[in-house]
Protein backbone atom coordinates (compact mmCIF):
# COMPACT_ATOMS: atom_id res chain seq x y z
CA UNK A 1 0.00 0.00 0.00
CA UNK A 2 2.80 2.37 1.00
CA UNK A 3 4.70 1.47 -2.18
CA UNK A 4 1.65 2.29 -4.24
CA UNK A 5 1.35 5.75 -2.68
CA UNK A 6 5.11 6.34 -3.03
CA UNK A 7 4.83 5.40 -6.71
CA UNK A 8 1.83 7.67 -7.31
CA UNK A 9 3.47 10.52 -5.40
CA UNK A 10 6.56 10.29 -7.63
CA UNK A 11 4.52 11.57 -10.59
CA UNK A 12 4.03 15.33 -10.78
CA UNK A 13 0.54 15.02 -12.36
CA UNK A 14 -0.61 12.77 -9.48
CA UNK A 15 0.73 15.17 -6.88
CA UNK A 16 -1.11 18.00 -8.61
CA UNK A 17 -4.28 15.90 -8.78
CA UNK A 18 -4.16 15.05 -5.06
CA UNK A 19 -3.52 18.66 -4.02
CA UNK A 20 -6.17 20.06 -6.42
CA UNK A 21 -8.88 17.63 -5.32
CA UNK A 22 -8.05 18.14 -1.62
CA UNK A 23 -8.55 21.90 -1.99
CA UNK A 24 -11.59 21.27 -4.20
CA UNK A 25 -13.17 19.04 -1.52
CA UNK A 26 -12.98 21.88 1.02
CA UNK A 27 -14.60 24.22 -1.50
CA UNK A 28 -17.41 22.03 -2.85
CA UNK A 29 -18.46 20.48 0.49
CA UNK A 30 -20.39 23.56 1.73
CA UNK A 31 -21.82 24.16 -1.76
CA UNK A 32 -23.08 20.56 -1.90
CA UNK A 33 -24.51 20.71 1.62
CA UNK A 34 -26.63 23.75 0.77
CA UNK A 35 -27.62 22.42 -2.67
CA UNK A 36 -29.10 19.41 -0.88
CA UNK A 37 -30.68 21.38 1.96
CA UNK A 38 -32.15 23.97 -0.43
CA UNK A 39 -33.61 21.13 -2.55
CA UNK A 40 -31.49 22.24 -5.49
CA UNK A 41 -29.64 18.94 -6.07
CA UNK A 42 -31.04 18.52 -9.57
CA UNK A 43 -30.69 22.22 -10.34
CA UNK A 44 -26.96 21.86 -9.55
CA UNK A 45 -26.70 18.99 -12.00
CA UNK A 46 -28.55 21.01 -14.65
CA UNK A 47 -26.28 24.00 -14.08
CA UNK A 48 -23.21 21.78 -14.55
CA UNK A 49 -24.49 20.90 -18.02
CA UNK A 50 -25.63 24.44 -18.77
CA UNK A 51 -22.10 25.87 -18.54
CA UNK A 52 -20.85 23.46 -21.25
CA UNK A 53 -21.42 25.71 -24.30
CA UNK A 54 -19.64 28.60 -22.58
CA UNK A 55 -16.60 26.45 -21.86
CA UNK A 56 -16.67 25.02 -25.39
CA UNK A 57 -17.00 28.40 -27.12
CA UNK A 58 -14.21 29.75 -24.89
CA UNK A 59 -12.07 26.72 -25.79
CA UNK A 60 -12.77 26.93 -29.54
CA UNK A 61 -12.09 30.68 -29.72
CA UNK A 62 -9.25 31.09 -27.22
CA UNK A 63 -7.89 27.61 -26.51
CA UNK A 64 -8.09 25.62 -23.29
CA UNK A 65 -6.88 28.37 -20.96
CA UNK A 66 -8.12 29.08 -17.46
CA UNK A 67 -9.33 32.54 -18.51
CA UNK A 68 -11.38 31.22 -21.46
CA UNK A 69 -12.81 28.51 -19.18
CA UNK A 70 -13.69 31.01 -16.48
CA UNK A 71 -15.18 33.69 -18.76
CA UNK A 72 -17.08 31.25 -21.01
CA UNK A 73 -18.42 29.20 -18.09
CA UNK A 74 -19.44 32.24 -16.05
CA UNK A 75 -21.24 33.88 -18.99
CA UNK A 76 -23.11 30.64 -19.79
CA UNK A 77 -23.91 29.87 -16.14
CA UNK A 78 -25.12 33.35 -15.23
CA UNK A 79 -26.98 33.62 -18.57
CA UNK A 80 -28.86 30.36 -17.96
CA UNK A 81 -29.63 31.38 -14.36
CA UNK A 82 -31.08 34.74 -15.49
CA UNK A 83 -33.05 33.17 -18.38
CA UNK A 84 -34.43 30.51 -16.01
CA UNK A 85 -35.60 33.18 -13.55
CA UNK A 86 -37.18 35.16 -16.43
CA UNK A 87 -39.03 32.14 -17.85
CA UNK A 88 -40.24 31.12 -14.38
CA UNK A 89 -41.46 34.62 -13.56
CA UNK A 90 -42.97 35.72 -16.89
CA UNK A 91 -44.29 32.48 -18.41
CA UNK A 92 -46.36 29.48 -17.32
CA UNK A 93 -43.31 27.22 -16.81
CA UNK A 94 -41.95 26.62 -13.32
CA UNK A 95 -38.23 27.09 -12.65
CA UNK A 96 -37.41 23.34 -12.77
CA UNK A 97 -38.95 22.91 -16.24
CA UNK A 98 -37.35 26.17 -17.45
CA UNK A 99 -33.91 25.10 -16.22
CA UNK A 100 -34.31 21.57 -17.65
CA UNK A 101 -35.24 22.98 -21.07
CA UNK A 102 -32.34 25.43 -21.12
CA UNK A 103 -29.67 23.02 -19.90
CA UNK A 104 -30.63 20.41 -22.51
CA UNK A 105 -30.30 23.03 -25.26
CA UNK A 106 -27.02 24.24 -23.77
CA UNK A 107 -25.51 20.77 -23.40
CA UNK A 108 -26.49 19.78 -26.94
CA UNK A 109 -25.12 23.06 -28.31
CA UNK A 110 -21.87 22.58 -26.42
CA UNK A 111 -21.27 19.05 -27.71
CA UNK A 112 -22.33 20.09 -31.25
CA UNK A 113 -19.90 23.03 -31.34
CA UNK A 114 -17.08 20.92 -29.86
CA UNK A 115 -17.58 18.18 -32.45
CA UNK A 116 -18.08 20.59 -35.37
CA UNK A 117 -14.89 22.48 -34.50
CA UNK A 118 -12.94 19.23 -34.77
CA UNK A 119 -11.50 19.66 -31.32
CA UNK A 120 -8.05 18.43 -30.40
CA UNK A 121 -9.30 17.69 -26.90
CA UNK A 122 -10.93 14.26 -26.68
CA UNK A 123 -14.63 14.49 -25.89
CA UNK A 124 -14.20 11.92 -23.09
CA UNK A 125 -11.82 14.09 -21.08
CA UNK A 126 -14.11 17.09 -21.64
CA UNK A 127 -17.14 15.27 -20.27
CA UNK A 128 -15.51 13.12 -17.59
CA UNK A 129 -12.30 14.92 -16.63
CA UNK A 130 -8.65 13.97 -16.81
CA UNK A 131 -6.03 14.07 -14.09
CA UNK A 132 -3.42 14.68 -16.77
CA UNK A 133 -4.91 18.07 -17.58
CA UNK A 134 -4.18 19.78 -14.25
CA UNK A 135 -1.49 22.39 -14.91
CA UNK A 136 -0.30 25.38 -12.84
CA UNK A 137 -3.10 27.60 -14.11
CA UNK A 138 -5.73 24.97 -13.18
CA UNK A 139 -4.22 24.74 -9.69
CA UNK A 140 -4.45 28.53 -9.37
CA UNK A 141 -8.09 28.39 -10.49
CA UNK A 142 -8.97 25.73 -7.92
CA UNK A 143 -7.08 27.60 -5.17
CA UNK A 144 -8.66 30.94 -6.11
CA UNK A 145 -12.19 29.57 -6.27
CA UNK A 146 -11.73 27.70 -2.97
CA UNK A 147 -10.50 30.89 -1.26
CA UNK A 148 -13.40 32.96 -2.60
CA UNK A 149 -15.89 30.22 -1.65
CA UNK A 150 -14.65 29.79 1.92
CA UNK A 151 -14.49 33.55 2.59
CA UNK A 152 -17.97 34.00 1.05
CA UNK A 153 -19.34 31.17 3.18
CA UNK A 154 -17.86 32.66 6.34
CA UNK A 155 -19.84 35.83 5.58
CA UNK A 156 -22.97 34.19 4.16
CA UNK A 157 -23.33 31.18 6.46
CA UNK A 158 -25.81 32.67 8.91
CA UNK A 159 -28.13 34.23 6.24
CA UNK A 160 -27.80 31.04 4.17
CA UNK A 161 -28.92 28.89 7.09
CA UNK A 162 -31.92 31.13 7.84
CA UNK A 163 -32.93 31.46 4.17
CA UNK A 164 -32.61 27.71 3.61
CA UNK A 165 -34.42 26.65 6.77
CA UNK A 166 -37.29 29.15 6.50
CA UNK A 167 -37.24 31.21 3.26
CA UNK A 168 -40.41 33.21 4.00
CA UNK A 169 -39.12 34.22 7.44
CA UNK A 170 -35.83 35.25 5.82
CA UNK A 171 -37.60 37.30 3.12
CA UNK A 172 -39.51 39.11 5.83
CA UNK A 173 -36.27 39.82 7.69
CA UNK A 174 -34.12 41.35 4.98
CA UNK A 175 -34.48 43.96 2.26
CA UNK A 176 -32.48 42.10 -0.40
CA UNK A 177 -33.11 38.37 0.08
CA UNK A 178 -32.14 37.69 -3.56
CA UNK A 179 -28.52 38.64 -2.75
CA UNK A 180 -28.05 35.39 -0.84
CA UNK A 181 -29.73 33.28 -3.56
CA UNK A 182 -27.78 34.82 -6.43
CA UNK A 183 -24.53 34.84 -4.46
CA UNK A 184 -24.96 31.13 -3.80
CA UNK A 185 -25.67 30.41 -7.51
CA UNK A 186 -22.52 32.33 -8.48
CA UNK A 187 -20.45 30.27 -6.04
CA UNK A 188 -22.01 27.12 -7.53
CA UNK A 189 -20.96 28.09 -11.08
CA UNK A 190 -17.43 29.03 -9.91
CA UNK A 191 -17.02 25.66 -8.17
CA UNK A 192 -18.33 23.75 -11.19
CA UNK A 193 -15.67 25.50 -13.27
CA UNK A 194 -12.99 24.71 -10.70
CA UNK A 195 -14.01 21.04 -10.72
CA UNK A 196 -14.19 20.87 -14.53
CA UNK A 197 -10.60 19.77 -15.23
CA UNK A 198 -10.56 16.90 -12.74
CA UNK A 199 -14.15 15.71 -13.01
CA UNK A 200 -15.45 16.93 -16.39
CA UNK A 201 -18.74 18.72 -17.04
CA UNK A 202 -20.89 15.63 -16.52
CA UNK A 203 -19.32 14.56 -13.21
CA UNK A 204 -18.45 17.91 -11.59
CA UNK A 205 -21.63 18.13 -9.55
CA UNK A 206 -21.21 14.52 -8.33
CA UNK A 207 -18.50 15.59 -5.89
CA UNK A 208 -20.89 18.18 -4.49
CA UNK A 209 -24.09 16.17 -4.16
CA UNK A 210 -23.07 12.63 -3.18
CA UNK A 211 -20.84 13.48 -0.18
CA UNK A 212 -23.54 15.89 1.00
CA UNK A 213 -26.38 13.37 0.67
CA UNK A 214 -24.22 10.72 2.37
CA UNK A 215 -23.50 13.14 5.24
CA UNK A 216 -27.21 13.92 5.52
CA UNK A 217 -27.82 10.35 6.74
CA UNK A 218 -25.51 10.89 9.72
CA UNK A 219 -25.61 14.57 10.66
CA UNK A 220 -28.36 16.28 12.62
CA UNK A 221 -26.70 19.70 12.66
CA UNK A 222 -25.33 22.00 9.95
CA UNK A 223 -21.83 21.79 11.45
CA UNK A 224 -21.91 18.00 11.32
CA UNK A 225 -23.25 18.11 7.76
CA UNK A 226 -20.41 20.39 6.59
CA UNK A 227 -17.59 18.50 8.32
CA UNK A 228 -18.80 15.05 7.30
CA UNK A 229 -19.51 16.22 3.72
CA UNK A 230 -15.91 17.44 3.46
CA UNK A 231 -14.57 14.15 4.87
CA UNK A 232 -16.60 12.10 2.36
CA UNK A 233 -15.57 14.36 -0.55
CA UNK A 234 -11.89 14.15 0.41
CA UNK A 235 -11.95 10.37 0.82
CA UNK A 236 -13.80 10.03 -2.51
CA UNK A 237 -11.15 12.08 -4.30
CA UNK A 238 -8.16 10.23 -2.85
CA UNK A 239 -9.60 6.74 -3.37
CA UNK A 240 -11.02 7.71 -6.78
CA UNK A 241 -7.68 9.09 -7.98
CA UNK A 242 -5.94 5.92 -6.83
CA UNK A 243 -8.45 3.82 -8.79
CA UNK A 244 -7.96 6.03 -11.84
CA UNK A 245 -4.19 5.52 -11.48
CA UNK A 246 -4.52 1.74 -11.14
CA UNK A 247 -6.81 1.53 -14.19
CA UNK A 248 -5.22 4.03 -16.60
CA UNK A 249 -8.05 3.82 -19.13
CA UNK A 250 -10.63 5.08 -16.65
CA UNK A 251 -11.25 8.85 -16.45
CA UNK A 252 -10.83 10.36 -12.99
CA UNK A 253 -14.36 11.89 -12.83
CA UNK A 254 -16.42 8.68 -12.80
CA UNK A 255 -13.86 6.98 -10.50
CA UNK A 256 -14.20 9.73 -7.88
CA UNK A 257 -17.98 9.94 -8.22
CA UNK A 258 -18.35 6.14 -7.97
CA UNK A 259 -16.47 6.15 -4.66
CA UNK A 260 -18.69 9.02 -3.46
CA UNK A 261 -21.66 6.92 -4.59
CA UNK A 262 -20.43 4.03 -2.42
CA UNK A 263 -20.30 6.33 0.60
CA UNK A 264 -23.86 7.38 -0.21
CA UNK A 265 -25.15 3.79 -0.43
CA UNK A 266 -23.37 2.73 2.77
CA UNK A 267 -24.75 5.79 4.57
CA UNK A 268 -28.28 5.16 3.29
CA UNK A 269 -28.09 1.59 4.61
CA UNK A 270 -26.39 2.17 7.96
CA UNK A 271 -26.73 5.89 8.79
CA UNK A 272 -28.99 6.75 11.74
CA UNK A 273 -31.20 8.85 9.46
CA UNK A 274 -31.28 6.23 6.69
CA UNK A 275 -32.74 2.73 6.53
CA UNK A 276 -30.68 1.86 9.63
CA UNK A 277 -32.66 4.39 11.62
CA UNK A 278 -36.09 3.16 10.58
CA UNK A 279 -36.05 0.46 13.23
CA UNK A 280 -35.23 2.93 15.94
CA UNK A 281 -37.91 5.26 14.58
CA UNK A 282 -40.61 2.58 14.72
CA UNK A 283 -39.52 1.65 18.25
CA UNK A 284 -39.70 5.30 19.27
CA UNK A 285 -43.16 5.67 17.74
CA UNK A 286 -44.52 3.27 20.37
CA UNK A 287 -43.68 5.91 22.97
CA UNK A 288 -45.55 8.75 21.25
CA UNK A 289 -46.45 11.54 23.58
CA UNK A 290 -50.13 12.36 24.00
CA UNK A 291 -49.36 15.63 22.21
CA UNK A 292 -48.29 13.80 19.04
CA UNK A 293 -51.11 11.27 19.19
CA UNK A 294 -53.70 13.98 19.63
CA UNK A 295 -52.19 16.05 16.80
CA UNK A 296 -52.34 13.06 14.48
CA UNK A 297 -55.99 12.50 15.35
CA UNK A 298 -56.85 16.11 14.65
CA UNK A 299 -55.08 16.17 11.31
CA UNK A 300 -56.59 12.93 10.03
Amino acid at each position, binding site marked *: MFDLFAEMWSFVFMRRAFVATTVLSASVAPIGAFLV*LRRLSLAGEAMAHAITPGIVIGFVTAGLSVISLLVGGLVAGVGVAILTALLARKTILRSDASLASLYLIALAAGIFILSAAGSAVPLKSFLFGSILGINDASMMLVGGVASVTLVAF*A*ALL*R*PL*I*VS*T*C*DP*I*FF*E*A*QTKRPWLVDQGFMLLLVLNLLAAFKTLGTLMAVGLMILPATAA*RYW*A*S*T*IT*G*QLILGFAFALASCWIGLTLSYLFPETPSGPAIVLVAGSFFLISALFGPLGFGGRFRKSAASKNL*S*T*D*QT*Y*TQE*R*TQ
Partner: protein
Amino acid sequence: MTNVLEIRNLALGYPGLTLFKHLSVDIHAGTTLAVIGANGSGKSTFVKMLLGLMDPLAGRLTWPSGRPDEIGYLAQLTEFDRRFPIRVRDLAAMGAWRGFGLWSGLGRAGRDRVAAALDEAGILDLADRSLHTLSGGQLQRTLFARVILQDAPLILLDEPFAAVDQSTEAHLLSIIKRWREEGRAVVLVVHDLSSVLDHCSHALLLGGGTATHGPVDEVLTPDRLVSQGYLSESQAAWMFRGQANAQENRAHV
Protein backbone atom coordinates in the same frame (compact mmCIF):
# COMPACT_ATOMS: atom_id res chain seq x y z
CA MET B 1 -54.41 54.45 21.81
CA THR B 2 -51.22 54.49 19.68
CA ASN B 3 -51.53 53.32 16.11
CA VAL B 4 -48.79 50.99 14.93
CA LEU B 5 -50.12 51.00 11.36
CA GLU B 6 -52.80 52.93 9.48
CA ILE B 7 -54.18 51.31 6.32
CA ARG B 8 -56.30 53.41 3.98
CA ASN B 9 -58.44 52.35 1.02
CA LEU B 10 -56.50 49.11 0.53
CA ALA B 11 -57.17 46.80 -2.43
CA LEU B 12 -55.42 43.46 -2.39
CA GLY B 13 -55.12 40.67 -4.94
CA TYR B 14 -53.24 39.59 -8.01
CA PRO B 15 -53.30 40.84 -11.61
CA GLY B 16 -56.79 40.02 -12.90
CA LEU B 17 -58.09 39.01 -9.45
CA THR B 18 -59.06 41.51 -6.76
CA LEU B 19 -59.60 39.75 -3.41
CA PHE B 20 -61.06 42.81 -1.66
CA LYS B 21 -60.92 46.61 -1.87
CA HIS B 22 -61.71 49.80 0.08
CA LEU B 23 -60.32 48.48 3.37
CA SER B 24 -59.30 51.05 5.97
CA VAL B 25 -57.93 49.72 9.26
CA ASP B 26 -55.98 51.15 12.16
CA ILE B 27 -53.86 48.56 13.95
CA HIS B 28 -53.47 49.73 17.55
CA ALA B 29 -50.70 48.90 19.99
CA GLY B 30 -51.92 46.56 22.74
CA THR B 31 -54.72 45.01 20.67
CA THR B 32 -55.28 41.66 19.01
CA LEU B 33 -56.75 41.69 15.51
CA ALA B 34 -58.20 38.41 14.24
CA VAL B 35 -58.26 37.97 10.46
CA ILE B 36 -61.08 35.63 9.46
CA GLY B 37 -62.41 34.44 6.14
CA ALA B 38 -63.04 31.44 3.95
CA ASN B 39 -60.19 29.78 2.05
CA GLY B 40 -58.95 32.05 -0.74
CA SER B 41 -60.43 35.21 0.77
CA GLY B 42 -56.98 36.79 1.13
CA LYS B 43 -56.04 36.23 4.80
CA SER B 44 -52.47 35.03 4.22
CA THR B 45 -52.08 37.52 1.36
CA PHE B 46 -53.01 40.31 3.80
CA VAL B 47 -50.34 39.11 6.25
CA LYS B 48 -47.71 38.86 3.50
CA MET B 49 -48.59 42.40 2.37
CA LEU B 50 -48.06 43.65 5.95
CA LEU B 51 -44.67 41.93 5.94
CA GLY B 52 -43.73 43.72 2.72
CA LEU B 53 -43.51 40.49 0.73
CA MET B 54 -46.09 41.75 -1.79
CA ASP B 55 -47.47 45.11 -2.89
CA PRO B 56 -51.15 46.09 -2.60
CA LEU B 57 -53.11 46.76 -5.80
CA ALA B 58 -54.13 50.14 -4.37
CA GLY B 59 -54.18 52.01 -1.06
CA ARG B 60 -51.73 53.48 1.41
CA LEU B 61 -49.92 52.11 4.48
CA THR B 62 -48.72 54.64 7.04
CA TRP B 63 -46.49 53.72 9.98
CA PRO B 64 -46.92 56.62 12.46
CA SER B 65 -43.74 55.72 14.39
CA GLY B 66 -41.86 54.47 11.31
CA ARG B 67 -41.88 50.92 9.96
CA PRO B 68 -40.45 48.70 12.70
CA ASP B 69 -37.06 47.11 11.91
CA GLU B 70 -38.46 43.87 13.22
CA ILE B 71 -41.94 42.46 12.54
CA GLY B 72 -42.65 39.21 14.37
CA TYR B 73 -43.85 36.55 11.96
CA LEU B 74 -45.10 33.00 12.22
CA ALA B 75 -45.88 31.33 8.88
CA GLN B 76 -48.29 28.43 8.43
CA LEU B 77 -46.78 25.22 9.77
CA THR B 78 -47.25 23.52 6.38
CA GLU B 79 -44.71 25.91 4.82
CA PHE B 80 -41.91 24.72 7.09
CA ASP B 81 -39.27 22.11 6.19
CA ARG B 82 -39.06 19.89 9.27
CA ARG B 83 -36.14 17.85 7.89
CA PHE B 84 -33.71 20.74 8.12
CA PRO B 85 -30.76 19.66 10.33
CA ILE B 86 -31.02 22.13 13.17
CA ARG B 87 -31.67 21.93 16.90
CA VAL B 88 -34.60 23.54 18.68
CA ARG B 89 -32.44 26.17 20.43
CA ASP B 90 -30.78 27.22 17.13
CA LEU B 91 -34.10 27.57 15.29
CA ALA B 92 -35.47 29.73 18.12
CA ALA B 93 -32.25 31.80 18.16
CA MET B 94 -32.94 32.85 14.55
CA GLY B 95 -35.42 35.31 16.06
CA ALA B 96 -32.49 37.28 17.45
CA TRP B 97 -30.00 36.80 14.61
CA ARG B 98 -30.25 40.42 13.41
CA GLY B 99 -29.11 41.49 16.86
CA PHE B 100 -25.88 39.53 16.85
CA GLY B 101 -24.97 40.07 13.18
CA LEU B 102 -23.09 37.88 10.71
CA TRP B 103 -20.03 36.88 12.69
CA SER B 104 -20.40 37.04 16.45
CA GLY B 105 -21.66 34.23 18.65
CA LEU B 106 -24.69 34.47 20.89
CA GLY B 107 -22.71 35.12 24.06
CA ARG B 108 -23.89 34.37 27.56
CA ALA B 109 -26.63 37.01 27.53
CA GLY B 110 -27.90 35.76 24.17
CA ARG B 111 -27.96 32.15 25.34
CA ASP B 112 -29.87 33.21 28.46
CA ARG B 113 -32.43 35.06 26.29
CA VAL B 114 -32.91 31.99 24.09
CA ALA B 115 -33.31 29.76 27.17
CA ALA B 116 -35.87 32.16 28.66
CA ALA B 117 -37.88 32.21 25.41
CA LEU B 118 -37.84 28.39 25.19
CA ASP B 119 -38.90 28.23 28.83
CA GLU B 120 -41.80 30.60 28.21
CA ALA B 121 -42.87 28.47 25.23
CA GLY B 122 -42.71 25.40 27.50
CA ILE B 123 -40.00 23.54 25.58
CA LEU B 124 -36.75 24.24 27.44
CA ASP B 125 -36.32 20.50 27.98
CA LEU B 126 -36.39 19.99 24.19
CA ALA B 127 -33.66 22.57 23.47
CA ASP B 128 -31.16 20.05 22.09
CA ARG B 129 -33.64 17.98 20.08
CA SER B 130 -33.51 17.93 16.26
CA LEU B 131 -36.52 19.33 14.43
CA HIS B 132 -37.51 16.09 12.73
CA THR B 133 -38.15 14.51 16.15
CA LEU B 134 -40.73 17.13 17.18
CA SER B 135 -44.51 16.85 17.06
CA GLY B 136 -46.56 19.57 15.36
CA GLY B 137 -47.31 21.23 18.68
CA GLN B 138 -43.68 21.17 19.80
CA LEU B 139 -42.54 22.72 16.52
CA GLN B 140 -45.17 25.44 16.83
CA ARG B 141 -43.95 26.21 20.37
CA THR B 142 -40.38 26.47 18.99
CA LEU B 143 -41.54 28.94 16.34
CA PHE B 144 -43.37 30.92 19.04
CA ALA B 145 -40.09 31.06 20.98
CA ARG B 146 -38.49 32.51 17.84
CA VAL B 147 -41.20 35.20 17.67
CA ILE B 148 -40.64 35.97 21.39
CA LEU B 149 -36.94 36.55 20.61
CA GLN B 150 -37.82 38.87 17.72
CA ASP B 151 -39.11 41.26 20.41
CA ALA B 152 -41.20 43.13 17.79
CA PRO B 153 -43.88 45.82 18.28
CA LEU B 154 -46.06 44.19 15.56
CA ILE B 155 -46.55 40.41 15.49
CA LEU B 156 -48.19 38.52 12.60
CA LEU B 157 -49.33 34.93 13.18
CA ASP B 158 -50.68 32.91 10.24
CA GLU B 159 -52.92 30.10 11.50
CA PRO B 160 -50.97 29.56 14.74
CA PHE B 161 -53.38 26.94 16.12
CA ALA B 162 -53.66 24.68 13.08
CA ALA B 163 -52.70 21.08 14.00
CA VAL B 164 -51.93 21.78 17.66
CA ASP B 165 -53.75 20.23 20.61
CA GLN B 166 -55.95 22.09 23.10
CA SER B 167 -53.33 22.43 25.83
CA THR B 168 -50.77 23.81 23.36
CA GLU B 169 -53.38 26.23 22.00
CA ALA B 170 -54.16 27.44 25.53
CA HIS B 171 -50.43 27.91 26.24
CA LEU B 172 -49.86 29.84 23.00
CA LEU B 173 -52.92 32.02 23.73
CA SER B 174 -51.42 32.93 27.10
CA ILE B 175 -48.25 34.11 25.30
CA ILE B 176 -50.39 36.21 22.91
CA LYS B 177 -52.20 37.69 25.91
CA ARG B 178 -48.85 38.70 27.43
CA TRP B 179 -47.78 40.33 24.16
CA ARG B 180 -50.98 42.38 24.16
CA GLU B 181 -50.44 43.41 27.78
CA GLU B 182 -46.91 44.52 26.89
CA GLY B 183 -48.40 46.92 24.31
CA ARG B 184 -47.55 44.95 21.18
CA ALA B 185 -50.04 44.73 18.30
CA VAL B 186 -50.88 41.15 17.32
CA VAL B 187 -52.53 40.18 14.03
CA LEU B 188 -53.56 36.56 13.78
CA VAL B 189 -55.20 34.54 11.04
CA VAL B 190 -57.57 32.02 12.63
CA HIS B 191 -60.35 29.63 11.69
CA ASP B 192 -61.71 28.80 15.14
CA LEU B 193 -64.26 31.49 16.05
CA SER B 194 -64.34 30.55 19.74
CA SER B 195 -60.68 31.52 20.21
CA VAL B 196 -61.39 34.80 18.40
CA LEU B 197 -64.41 35.68 20.52
CA ASP B 198 -62.57 34.97 23.77
CA HIS B 199 -59.13 36.37 23.06
CA CYS B 200 -59.25 39.05 20.33
CA SER B 201 -60.32 42.67 20.64
CA HIS B 202 -60.82 43.37 16.94
CA ALA B 203 -61.69 41.35 13.86
CA LEU B 204 -61.21 41.71 10.13
CA LEU B 205 -63.68 39.58 8.17
CA LEU B 206 -62.70 38.89 4.55
CA GLY B 207 -64.90 37.32 1.89
CA GLY B 208 -67.38 38.00 -0.87
CA GLY B 209 -65.02 40.61 -2.32
CA THR B 210 -65.31 42.85 0.75
CA ALA B 211 -63.50 43.38 4.03
CA THR B 212 -65.22 44.36 7.28
CA HIS B 213 -63.28 45.64 10.27
CA GLY B 214 -64.13 46.63 13.83
CA PRO B 215 -64.53 45.34 17.41
CA VAL B 216 -65.13 41.58 17.47
CA ASP B 217 -68.76 41.71 18.66
CA GLU B 218 -69.67 44.22 15.92
CA VAL B 219 -68.00 42.36 13.06
CA LEU B 220 -68.67 38.73 13.85
CA THR B 221 -72.45 38.80 13.66
CA PRO B 222 -74.34 35.84 12.17
CA ASP B 223 -75.64 37.98 9.28
CA ARG B 224 -72.16 39.21 8.29
CA LEU B 225 -70.57 35.76 8.60
CA VAL B 226 -73.25 34.38 6.28
CA SER B 227 -73.25 37.26 3.77
CA GLN B 228 -69.43 37.15 3.44
CA GLY B 229 -69.50 33.40 2.81
CA TYR B 230 -67.74 32.28 6.01
CA LEU B 231 -70.67 30.28 7.45
CA SER B 232 -73.83 28.78 5.99
CA GLU B 233 -77.11 29.89 7.58
CA SER B 234 -77.50 26.62 9.49
CA GLN B 235 -73.89 26.81 10.77
CA ALA B 236 -74.44 30.39 11.92
CA ALA B 237 -77.72 29.44 13.65
CA TRP B 238 -76.01 26.56 15.47
CA MET B 239 -72.93 28.58 16.42
CA PHE B 240 -74.90 31.55 17.75
CA ARG B 241 -77.70 29.50 19.33
CA GLY B 242 -76.65 30.56 22.83
CA GLN B 243 -76.95 34.20 21.86
CA ALA B 244 -80.44 33.63 20.30
CA ASN B 245 -81.62 31.78 23.42
CA ALA B 246 -80.44 34.64 25.64
CA GLN B 247 -82.35 37.15 23.50
CA GLU B 248 -85.46 34.94 23.63
CA ASN B 249 -85.19 34.66 27.44
CA ARG B 250 -84.86 38.42 27.75
CA ALA B 251 -88.01 38.85 25.59
CA HIS B 252 -89.95 36.47 27.91
CA VAL B 253 -88.88 38.41 31.00
